[in-house]
Structure formats: C-alpha cells, structure tokens
C-alpha cells in the first residue's frame, strides 16, 4: 500500500500508537508509553494489523505471585513462626492459644498439625509446649519464608523455580490464599516491512478531518483539509432490526392467499363448548376424538351453556336418527352434558360450525376461511406440539360439488408453493366424501401429507343452515408448511423464542 494513503487512513488512536511501535513489542509496554487505555491500545493494534502494519501474537504467561494471605504473612511472619514464637517462653493451654498467638482458629489448626509433624511442639494433657528442636529451628530462616520473599520481588514462572522452591510452592498452594498462579495473556506484536516504513514516515504533516461534526460543518474547518481514509472493506458490528415473528409472517401469507381467492375471514374463540367443537359437526358423543387423552378439557370452568333450544334439538335429532335428512343418524341417546363440556378447540372447523349457524339464505354462495391455533393434549417432543396452526376454508354454494373441492384445493396448495397435489380417500365423521391431500415436495421429491378435506355431511349442514346446501371444507395443518420452509427439524423451535434465532431467521418470501 502507498504509504501516504496509509497515513491518511490512520485513526487517531492508531496515530497515537504508531510513534511507539518501534520502541516496544507488547501491549502493556505500548499502553505505558502511549498512555492509551487497554481497550484503545488493543483496538489500535487490531486496526493496524488489518492494515498489515504489524502482526499480533498472543502468548500465555504463567507467574507465581503472592495471594492475599501471602502478602500479610510476608509482613507479619508466617503463622507457624508466630505460633512457635509465642511458645518460646511459656507453655500454653489449648484454650489460651487464640489470645496468646493472635491467630485465627483456622490458622491455629494448621499450625498445630504442621509443627507437630516437624516435631517442633508437644501436645500433652491439653497443653502445648515447644521442643528443643522447635527452639533450634526458630532461630533459622525457613525455606518457605525465603520463597515468599523471593516471589514477592520477581515475576517468576513455575518453570523457573528450584526444586526446593517448587516444594514450598506446592505446600503453600494447599493452604488458603498464600500463593497463586496468575495466567496472563500477553499480546506481542511484530512490525511488518510496511510497518517499519510507516514508523519512519512522517505521520503528522497534515491535519486530517476525522468525524464530520455539526461544529465542523458550522465553522467550515473541514475546508482545505484532507479526510481520514476509512477502511471501507472492514466488517462492521451487527445491528438488529425490528421484525415480525416468522410464524406470523407465514400465517399472514396464508391469509393473503385466502383473500385472493375470495374468502372472508372467520373469527371465534379458542375456548368452546363441545357442542360447537363436536356435536354440531356430527361427531358422536362416544367418538375416540372426544376422549380425554387427545382433548384439552377445562377444569375450571368445566361446563358451559348450550345455545338456542331449537338448534340443540335439531342437533340431537340428527345424532339420534338423522332428523329429516334421510340419514339413519348414529342411533344412540344424545345427552346434554357431554355437549356442555368446555374444550380448547381441537380444530378450526369449530369456526365453520359457528359460521354456518349464523348464515341465512341470502348469504350464499359464500366462502370463509380461518387461520389459527388449535390444541391437542400431548407431550412435547420434536414432532409434537400441544398448540398447532391450522387453516380452514369452507365454500357454501348450492351448486358446489366434489370436482370444485378438488379445484379449490389444487389452487390453494399451488399458491402455498406446492403446484402438484394428489387426493386419496380418507375418513372424518363430518365429511363425505373425505379426502387426504398429498403435495409433491419440489425439493425432497416426495409426496407429503398435508391435511384433510371433504364435503360436509347433510347431517352437519342441515341443522346449522336450515337446508342441506353443499359445503366444501378443508383444514390442512400449517405447521408442516412452515417447518419445511424455514428448515426447522424440531417443531418446538417454532415457539422457542430464542432471540438470536428470531433475529437471524430468514424472511418469508413467498
């Protein structure tokens, strides 16, 4: 790089560091010489490294140092010496030790053990006395003491210790806060050829403009000056944007697809009576889907109210003998109580039963849709959630038929990104014919099951609508479409709300 351009691109921190680069080779020295803080000096070095002025090498250095107690002992003497000193003149009782020595009970315990093992004291009948050997060693400087003095004055690494010193070090390490091993990370640097040239260059000739400030603009001081060059190729710190949750991005898209196809949105509660969730849909009261293990029933409140008596009567007739539809019905005694149970909706089809009940003759032909959460009482694992997204569409049209159902479905799934769909017979208590929809996954090149559809049975439609108008209905799950799109393997990740996942998740782009 041209040295002049390099000089122009120097940041003020780099400018402060450059004059000292030839006089030192590590971060600490540079800080001392340049009076830069650690963070500033480090940033300057990193930027200079980016500019290929120098190379940074990180080294780890271990140093043996005095810890808190070690510093105190260096000044006041080791506790064992003070202990022995106190015994020089008199015999002490165990109880009187604290007062006489001025040591803590922990320290006394250490001293007793230590001095006894050195045969410097004698403990008998609750009294402690010094031995002759004890008196003898009291007059010498101990190895441990010499060691403390030595490391206090130097930065020795563990490798530099003599075997005796190492022995003392190991003993002290077992005791509380006498010595420690400090691990220092040393940043050394080495100038490149470019760096050597930079150090020799004149870096102070021109005054350059750094940040453009309102003050600089106001006084025009930027005129006739050069601007410091920035490293425009540098990686910048990431910033975070505000963002919709990715699940909501996808469900909003589903809404848009429905609206484009002329459907009107249905709304309704998540908490329903079984009457709307099951009975109005001709699901018999002993159907396995109504059993506890699949369905979230409410403990408090446990029972709700049934709607208009006439409607209830019509539904009851339908279950018991098929009303006036010509159906046999399910042929059992329909009861109020199971219909009053409160349930978290098990499917968005409950919205269709509410909607059908609210329509009158002049309202159709009509098309409705819903997108929303449904619930299933099961344990969480990678492929099961107790809350799942379903999307639901119905077409109420006196001229609707099975071919239309297939037509709507094909178009709907094509808009969701699956141009190939195939249909298989299936079974739901409230539709006839019933369909299972498979779509061809364009990437994995295989058929994927996406949900159910059908034509509502007359036993469903007649009591709600007043006449048996054909109603086409489909209610595919939506989670699978989302997990496929976002590349999520564990379905729990849909609602993990890990902010870094939310921040980095790709945008819904269909």
């Amino acid at each position, binding site marked *: 790089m041209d040295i002049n351009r390099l000089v122009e691109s120097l940041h003020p921190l780099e400018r402060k560091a450059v004059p000292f680069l030839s006089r030192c080779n590590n971060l600490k020295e540079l800080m001392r010489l340049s009076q830069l803080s650690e963070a500033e000096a480090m940033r300057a070095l990193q930027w200079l490294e980016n500019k290929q002025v120098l190379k940074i090498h990180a080294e780890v250095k271990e140093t043996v140092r005095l810890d808190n107690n070690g510093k105190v002992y260096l000044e006041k003497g080791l506790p064992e010496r003070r202990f022995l000193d106190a015994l020089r003149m008199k015999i002490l009782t165990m109880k009187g030790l604290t007062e006489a020595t001025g040591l803590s009970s922990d320290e006394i315990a250490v001293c007793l053990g230590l001095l006894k093992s050195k045969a410097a004291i004698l403990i008998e009948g609750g009294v402690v006395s010094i031995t002759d050997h004890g008196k003898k060693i009291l007059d010498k400087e101990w190895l441990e003491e010499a060691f403390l003095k030595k490391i206090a004055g130097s930065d020795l690494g563990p490798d530099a210790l003599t075997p005796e010193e190492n022995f003392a070090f190991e003993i002290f390490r077992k005791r509380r806060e006498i010595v420690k091993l400090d691990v220092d990370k040393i940043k050394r640097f080495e100038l490149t050829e470019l760096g050597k040239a930079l150090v020799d260059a004149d870096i102070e000739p021109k005054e350059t403009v750094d940040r453009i400030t309102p003050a600089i603009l106001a006084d025009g001081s930027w005129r006739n000056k050069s601007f410091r060059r920035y490293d425009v190729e540098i990686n910048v710190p990431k910033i975070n944007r505000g963002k919709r949750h990715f699940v909501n991005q996808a469900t909003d898209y589903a809404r848009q697809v429905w609206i484009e196809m002329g459907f009107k949105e249905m709304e309704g509660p998540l908490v329903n009576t079984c009457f709307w969730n099951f009975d109005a849909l001709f699901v018999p009261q002993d159907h396995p889907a109504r059993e506890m293990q699949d369905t979230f029933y409410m403990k408090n409140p446990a029972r709700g109210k049934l709607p208009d008596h006439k409607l209830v009567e019509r539904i009851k007739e339908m279950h018991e003998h098929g009303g006036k539809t010509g159906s046999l019905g399910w042929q059992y005694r329909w009861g109020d109580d199971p219909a009053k149970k*409160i349930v978290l909706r098990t499917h968005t089809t409950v919205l269709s039963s509410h909607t059908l009940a609210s329509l009158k003759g002049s309202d159709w032909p009509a098309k409705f849709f819903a997108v929303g959460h449904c619930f299933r009482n099961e344990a969480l694992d990678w492929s099961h959630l107790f809350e799942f997204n379903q999307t639901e569409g119905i077409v109420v049209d006196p001229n609707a038929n099975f071919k*239309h159902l297939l037509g709507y479905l094909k178009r709907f799934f094509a808009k969701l990104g699956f141009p190939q769909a195939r249909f298989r017979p299936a079974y739901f208590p409230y539709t006839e014919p*019933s369909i299972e929809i498979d779509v061809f996954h364009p990437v994995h090149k295989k058929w994927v099951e996406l949900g159910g559809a059908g034509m509502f049975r007359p036993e469903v439609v007649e009591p709600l609508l007043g006449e048996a108008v054909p109603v086409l209905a489909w209610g595919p799950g939506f989670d699978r479409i989302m997990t496929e799109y976002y590349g999520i393997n564990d379905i729990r990740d849909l609602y993990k709300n890990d902010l870094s996942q939310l921040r980095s998740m790709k945008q819904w782009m269909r």
Partner: protein
Amino acid sequence: MPTVKLNKKVFNKLVGKELSDDQLRERIPMIGTDLEGIEGDDINVEVFPNRPDMLSEQGFARAFSAFIGVKTGLRNYDVKKSGSKVMIDASVKDVRPFTACALVKNLKFNDEKIREIIQIQEKLHVTFGRNRKKLAIGIYPLEKIKLPIKYFAADPNKIKFRPLEFPSEITALQILSQHPAGREYGHLLEGKEKFPFFADAGDNILSMPPVINSHITGKIEESTSEVFIECSGFDFNTCKICLNIIVTAMADMGGEIYSMELEYADGRKVTPDLDPRKIKLDVPFINKWLGLKLSEKDMVDLLAKMGYGFDMGFTLIPAYRADILHMVDLAEDVAIAYGYEKFDAEIPNVATIGQESEFETFRRRVSEILIGLGLLETSTYNLSNAPDQDEKMMTDFPLVELESAVNIDYNVLRAWMLPSLMKVLHDNKSNDYPQNIFESGNCFALDKDSETGVCEFCTLAVALCGPDTDFTRIKQVVDCLLSALDCRYVSSEAEHPSFIPGRVAYVSVNDTIIGHVGELHPQVLVNWGLEMPVAAFELSLTGLFKALKSRQ
C-alpha cells in the same frame, strides 16, 4: 387408528389375483385405507374407523378383490338355522342390555387362524367397541358348552369361576382386582350391583362380559372346530353388525354360519341376520354431489366394485357395513370406485368478495408500528402455568385451568401476556442486550355470563430490557403507538403489584382503562432470574379496537 397386518400369500389367495408390490402400493390407498408399508410377506395397512369390516384379512381382501374388479358385487352368505337358544334374563337390562349371538361350525383352526381371530376380536374391541365400553365380543369352543345358553346379571360376590389363564376359581369381584384383564376393564363394571354373565345349560360360567372368558369353557384351541360367538353391549344394532363382521370373516375362512334364537323378555330375535339392507339409489343426487354424469348402470357397476348389490332400483348394502347412514355415504363409495385420481379439478365461476377480519388488519398494523420502533415480535403459547402467571409476577389473577394437562408447565390459559414476555427474557439471558420485544395474543378470564364461562380478549405487551431501560422509554413507546393510531389517551397514577410503586400508570382511552405501563418491580426481576431492568406495558387490543371503532 388401528393397523392390520395382512399376510401377502393369504391375501392374494383371498383376493383371487396377485398384484405386484407397486400395484398394491398404488391401489391400497385409493380404496380408503392408509398403506403403512409392505415388508416381505407383510402388508401393513391402517383401516379408517368407518370400515370395521376391513379390520380382518378376510374383510380387507373381500373389499379389495371387489375394488380391483375380481369378485365384484354383493357376497352372499348362507345362514343355517341351529334352533339353539340364548335366554336373555331381564336382569341384564341395567348392566349390559343386549347381545347378538351365532354359531360357526366346520372351522379348521391352526395357530395362525387362532391368532387371526384374536386379532379381529381385539381390533373390533378397540375401535368399533370403543375399548369394550360400547361392545365386547366373546368366542367360545362349542364342544365344551351345553346349549341353551343363558345371559343374566348376578351379584359378583356370589359368582365364582376360573378366568382365562388364571390358576384358580375366584369370585367375579376378585377378578377385577386380581386378573390383568379385570384391572384393565374392571372400570366398565365398577359400581354396578350386578355383573353380566354368560352360562351354559349346566350352569358353567362362560364369561363375564366385557372383561374375561372362563378358562374352562371360553378358550379356543387347535382342536376347536365349532364356536359360539356373542357380541354384547348397549345397542342391539351395533352388536348385530359386529357379529356380522365376525361371522362373515369366519365364513371366508371356510366356516358355516348357524343362527341362534335370542329369547329377550320382550320377544324373540334371530341372529345373525345377513340380509342386505336396501336403500333406493338416488342417481341424480349422487351425480350432483360429485359433479358427474353417470348413468344408473355406470353407478351400479361402480357400487359393485365396493361390494354392493343392486335390485330393482335399490342398492343392497352388505350386512357387515356399519357406515352407510345417508346417500352421501354411497356417493363417497361411488367416488372411490370411480377413482379420486380421475376427477377433473374445477373452480366454478362464483363471485365472492375476499375480506380479512377488521380486527386482524388492526392487529397487524399495530405490529408494523412496533417493528418501526425496532422491536422484535415473539410468539408464545396460549398455555402457561400458575407460578409464571401469578407467583413470579406477584399478582393474584383467577386462572382458567385445564383438566389433566399432560405438561404440568402448561396447565392454565394465560390471564395476561406480560409473563410470557418475561419468560422469553428469562430464556434469553445469554443473548445480546437490549432485548426489546412485543407480542399480541389471546388472554383468558373467567366470565360467568358467557357461553363457555370464559372471556377471551386480545392483548398487546411490550417489554424493554437492557441497561438503559426506564419508565420514560416505555412510555415513549405507548405514546408513539397511540399517536400513530391517532388515539388520545390519558395516563394516571396506578397501583400494580408487578411494578415499582410510583412508576406505574394506567392507560385510559375514552375514560376506560385499557392497560398499564411501568417499570417492573425488582422482586419480579429476581423471581424471573433477570439481572437487567425491564420496563413494560400491556394494553387490551380488543378494548383499543372497540374504542377506535366507536369513534367512527
């Protein structure tokens, strides 16, 4: 849904034609069953609950053979009169009132066939019989039984017999606690003064439906060639159809069906009755329903592929079909025989206007405004738990509770949104700060006046979490949001246990409080294990939407 394992060799023989695995893979799903897979000689299929007659190898093969055009039309089964009686005592009326019975003779049992029969029985128990609650099936070796047979109810302390695979005789009541089947199905009889029993003419107990057979008189062995079959339950028609499913499968194994005379207190009935039910074929209705233009002949041919007969304008429905309630059920079978893959998909030219719910439009706009402020939207569950909703927040909201939730961490419906955001902050302590998040969603309160006893409303919560978070910052967000919505509001001093006293305000629109805004109490932060301040607000979007609408 139950899966049935079919042996390919037996299946091919029953079907009368051998198809390649690929053909089976292609055709089996199109008859209305899920093919789980073909492995070696095993074909595993999942049968839908509307077709209990396909739960046996014989029944499945019968349907499939017709579907692929080998043996089409109604199968005729001969029922001979046995003249044998079953006396049904009036005492069963309050326990398990109905039974349908038959004899099947000339069976050649081997291990494989015994297993097959037990499979049919078990699959029917689970599905059609609703785990024996609605209906239970008993099959007994005829050579160990003295006819006629009695069906009666009696004090369970007074009846003793040796239940299947049990070493000794015990009382009927003891069976409920001592026998594995008793422990599994005993709840179906619990609390009844009398239990139902079958016994033979020699007063030997045959079984105690729906729990267990006798070891002596109720165990099928390879030497068995004649059996007594009973289906007992709460609905005579269901019992009859179930019996028909079993005896036709046994007839397909080579057995001969004999009827029995059931002496009920109110008259005599004879089972099994394999005469087909008749229903007038409504050709125009089916054509309209399916969008087809089939002639009567075409339709009859298609129905023959689904095992139906036809006579003088009437469809003959096999006596083992339980699912034909209405003409639409025939329409579906016509569609299946026609082939779902052969229908043209059409979109009719019907004009309707697409429309998003106004509230959803509003809710999305609110989200967009907040995103403009750099906030990140979260999406959490509607389900929560009492410690999160109340204890950690130092509040005392009444909660809507779920019954027997599998996950105890998710056993109530949330009363408010802020705890959900606090949980998100708690789960993200290792991520970068500031963490400024929001979410709107349903919350739930008890409400005696509503249909369900629950009132649902949508709320919006915003939480700012980071070293510089304070009351001013969060109130700025409220202010910015409401002014973007062109909504005047008043804030007034409030009290709320989750917030610092003196740093929480009500937010009111049109003199109605719609939420609160403030700095979270440090104790709440400690309860959530947070080491950063949080300032937050929660507003009722339902309330705000109403207020804005009322202005128009």
